[in-house]
């Protein structure tokens, strides 16, 4: 005979308490080592499954797309259209390869890294959550990547490693609302500011810029590299697109765009650097 749960409210209360406890312990650090370890193991274990399924699903998707395309081709002119498609494909492939080559070549000579060592990585996914601006990359602990290491692109800072497993890592982009980067701007030695993310696809904002600071559009904010900072000094972060001071504001309201094109990332470099380095 089917069972009947007699105390659903008690069950709910216990589950809510358990969830809140997990969240609190994780946030306060008591459980973070455990949860990040479990996440890392899950990511490692799931990685081959993901690759296998992708290998199966992608050809099916291509086949379906090809079938749809085939119908349209036959309605017009099969032969001519096929040629056009082929030319288009070649052109797209060339452009695609050229873009990949451009990004890879640029990563080989990042002037701002100086002597810092880095590991090139391919971007495998753009964000597993709609509530955070992150990317997944195909390097992990086995490549020397550790938590909180900076990640750069050909234009400048991309973000920071926030989750790392054996062969993969998750990078929080500088546009994420949780991101805050200590920066310098203006003529040397430069003034200090904090560049904050305000959400995916939105411009960055800068804190600690005094009111009426003369900022020009296009001025670049670079990482400050202060003692204990999360990033080494001198990495371009973002460029000013607008600034103004309100009548009663004590700070300049500054809007910036990332130096790296975060919407078209394919390859990045993880800088093998930590705050203690």
């Amino acid at each position, binding site marked *: 005979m089917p069972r009947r749960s007699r105390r659903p409210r008690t069950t709910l209360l216990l589950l809510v308490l358990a969830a*809140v406890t997990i969240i609190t312990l994780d946030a306060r650090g008591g459980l973070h080592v455990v949860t990040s370890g479990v996440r890392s193991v899950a990511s490692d274990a799931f990685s081959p499954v993901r690759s296998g399924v992708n290998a199966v699903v992608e050809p099916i998707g291509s086949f379906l797309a090809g079938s749809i395309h085939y119908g349209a081709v036959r309605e017009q002119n099969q032969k001519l259209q096929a040629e056009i498609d082929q030319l288009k494909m070649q052109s797209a492939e060339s452009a695609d390869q050229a873009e990949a080559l451009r990004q890879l070549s640029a990563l080989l000579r990042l002037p701002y890294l100086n002597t810092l060592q880095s590991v090139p990585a391919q971007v495998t996914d753009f964000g597993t959550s*709609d509530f955070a601006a992150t990317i997944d990359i195909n390097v992990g602990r086995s490549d020397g990547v550790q938590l909180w290491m900076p990640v750069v692109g050909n234009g400048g800072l991309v973000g920071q490693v926030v989750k790392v497993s054996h062969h993969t890592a998750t990078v929080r982009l500088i546009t994420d609302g949780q991101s805050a980067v200590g920066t310098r701007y203006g003529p040397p030695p430069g003034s200090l500011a904090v560049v904050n993310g305000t959400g*995916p696809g939105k411009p960055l904002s800068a804190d600690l810029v005094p009111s009426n600071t003369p900022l020009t559009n296009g001025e670049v904010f670079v990482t400050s590299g202060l003692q204990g900072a999360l990033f080494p000094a001198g990495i371009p972060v973002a460029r000013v697109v607008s600034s103004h001071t309100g009548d009663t504001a004590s700070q300049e309201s500054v809007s910036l765009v990332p130096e790296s094109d975060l919407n078209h990332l394919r390859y990045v470099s993880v800088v093998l650097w930590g705050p203690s380095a």
Partner: protein
Amino acid sequence: MTRGEVARLSLVVFIFVVIQETVMLDVRIRGVHPDIMVLLPIVAGIIGGPARGATFGFATGLVSDLFLPTPFGLSALVGCLLGFAVGLATIALDRTAWWLAPLAALGGSALYEVTYGALGSILGQPQMLHVALARIVVVVSVTNAVLAIPAMRLVSWGMADASTEGMPTSDAGVGAAR
């Protein structure tokens, strides 16, 4: 819960995780990807009632949290609340009605996403409200409404001993929606 049921439900959750982490992550509708993991507590709530909906929502939420960059435990918290709420809201309804699952998925997914953003914000992640929440709600709700019926069949298969909470006594022997 029997061993067989645990095995079947684990398989169902695994299938959902695989689809979410492969196919769904590649599907982007105006920058938002669907989230079929939200369907699990919803259909579990319909099939098993408030307590089992909450328990299943908690468990599947913890699994989701393994793959998300957001606070660990947040999906579990919202999942158990949602499973309970759906179970409670549908307790007096005919659970075999074909429209119930899509409708519950539509409303439940919207509720989940809003609660997820709001609770995340309260729990120290204010950026979780600085996203295109309306777009996320629409994309996730509509895709889940479309996929609700197959999800219902899968979870029904997994929950062989579904509870009869709130069901009329005459239906108790029949079990939940299959």
